């Protein structure tokens, strides 16, 4: 907890501030506390990863930030305002575990979807070029392919391009590479870091994988279940840019071991 206190950014610097957040679901079997006393923040242009056992509320937390769920208590502020305002202003991109592409649209038309619905991009903000977004994720050559013609990794790249097309300040990613094989996942991790540096968006990334969390993030939020709480916040002091073989370094192994200890303890 001391780490959390020391790294809590000053609110001017933070894009996302969660204060004593609580969320309970009313279910058939009674109340279920998915999140309790969650207080943390994400710095502007930061890369933060949330890790924790399944059911500890990681997805719920992302959904609160994206205005898909309302907290029962506590407060959440994104870019200094209410999440709903941020959602309406198209400042949030969301990448789901299964790419959630529309099967009847080509890769390019899927990337264009955000520009076609919800009033498109609000006045005053500049959307990205969909073709350029596909190129950014390395799929420039497959613009006319349909989702069923693409591999799982490619589909996820399309969904990242779609999330980026409105130039969001915040990118939320819920286990986006969880269903991919390790080699594809490592490759996409490297590309994601590049996309992050190119676009400068703030990323909150949920994962099950300790190496993925260590490789990607500046800061890892370790959560524990029943109820979902922040167990500890760990700074990852590996320098950027991070070459692929940083995973073999001693420092990497030490941090990974520390995280494993937190998750098992």
């Amino acid at each position, binding site marked *: 907890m001391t780490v959390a206190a020391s790294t809590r950014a000053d609110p001017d610097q933070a894009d996302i501030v969660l204060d004593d957040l609580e969320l309970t679901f009313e279910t058939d079997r009674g109340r279920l506390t998915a999140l309790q006393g969650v207080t943390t923040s994400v710095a502007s242009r930061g890369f933060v990863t949330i890790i924790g056992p399944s059911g500890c509320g990681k997805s719920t937390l992302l*959904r609160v930030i994206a205005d*898909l769920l309302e907290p029962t208590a506590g407060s959440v502020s994104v870019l200094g305002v209410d999440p709903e305002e941020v959602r309406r202003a*198209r400042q*949030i991109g969301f990448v789901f575990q299964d790419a959630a592409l*529309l099967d*009847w649209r080509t890769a390019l038309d899927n990337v264009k979807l955000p520009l076609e*619905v*919800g*009033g498109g991009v609000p006045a005053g903000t500049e959307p990205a070029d969909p073709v350029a977004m596909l190129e950014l994720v390395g799929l420039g050559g497959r613009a006319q392919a349909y989702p069923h013609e693409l591999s799982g990794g490619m589909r996820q790249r399309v969904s990242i391009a779609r999330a980026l097309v409105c130039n969001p300040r915040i990118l939320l990613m819920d286990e986006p590479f969880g269903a991919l094989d390790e080699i594809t996942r490592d490759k996409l991790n490297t590309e994601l870091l590049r996309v992050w540096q190119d676009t400068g968006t703030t990323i909150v990334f949920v994962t099950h994988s300790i190496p993925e969390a260590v490789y990607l993030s500046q800061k890892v939020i370790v959560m524990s279940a029943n109820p979902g709480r922040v167990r500890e916040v760990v700074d990852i002091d590996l320098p950027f840019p991070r070459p692929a073989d940083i995973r073999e370094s001693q420092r990497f192994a030490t941090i990974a071991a520390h995280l494993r200890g937190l998750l098992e303890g």
Partner: protein
Amino acid sequence: MVTTEVKAREGRRTRRGGNARGAPSRWIAPVVTIVVVIALWQLVVVAFGIPNYVIASPVDVGRELVASWDMLMANLWPTALETVLGFLLGNVVAILIAVVFVHWKTAERSLFPLVIFVRTVPIVAVAPILVVIFGTGYLPKILVAALISFFPTLVNMVRGLEAVQRQTMELLRVLSATRRETFFKVRLYTSLPYLFSSLKISATSSVIGAVVGEWVGAQEGLGYLIIQSTFNFNVPLLYATMVVTSVFATLFFLLIGFVESRVVTWAPKTEF
């Protein structure tokens, strides 16, 4: 069993070889089966000396088809008209009601049980009621065909419109999409494979509806011809009418399947 498996594997090999549509090996097996069945039928009728007022032989049926061709076609048109109009009416109404149900849950909750109940009433019992009300013209037959098309499409269309993945719905909310956008850009497309699977069912069942409607009271149509040839012990004509009816139903079914393959282009190809 063994032969079918071999056929299936051959079929796949041809397709991989780039010969997309033709793959003749896929058609050989069913054609051979049909030819064998017809040959056996002829053989049995001849061997046991079965009179043609009990079972008509394929040769008798063929002869009758040629001899009565004009009359068969003259009776096909009314049935075809009733079928197609009934199909359109039943499906269009079902689709519209499904759209209302999906956007207005109260309507769905209060009316769906009624729909399920009406669905259990056998169509053969409904046909006379409609004839009594609407007389012996086209209308009651169209209504029977419509009714028989209506239920599977209503059920499938509601299911299809609601089959949008949870994550896709969340995506649309993140994008602040309106209900209208959600409907036209997502729900409609999601529902199409469901819709077509029920359209293919109702393509054949609407023919049954029209024929059953004609049984109850008609002066023309394939259903009328079936009743007449039965009363007159004209078994070859009865069989010939049956052949025309099922060829028509099959063509209608294939037409819908063709439209599906043109409309639902994004899904991996299904065979029909």
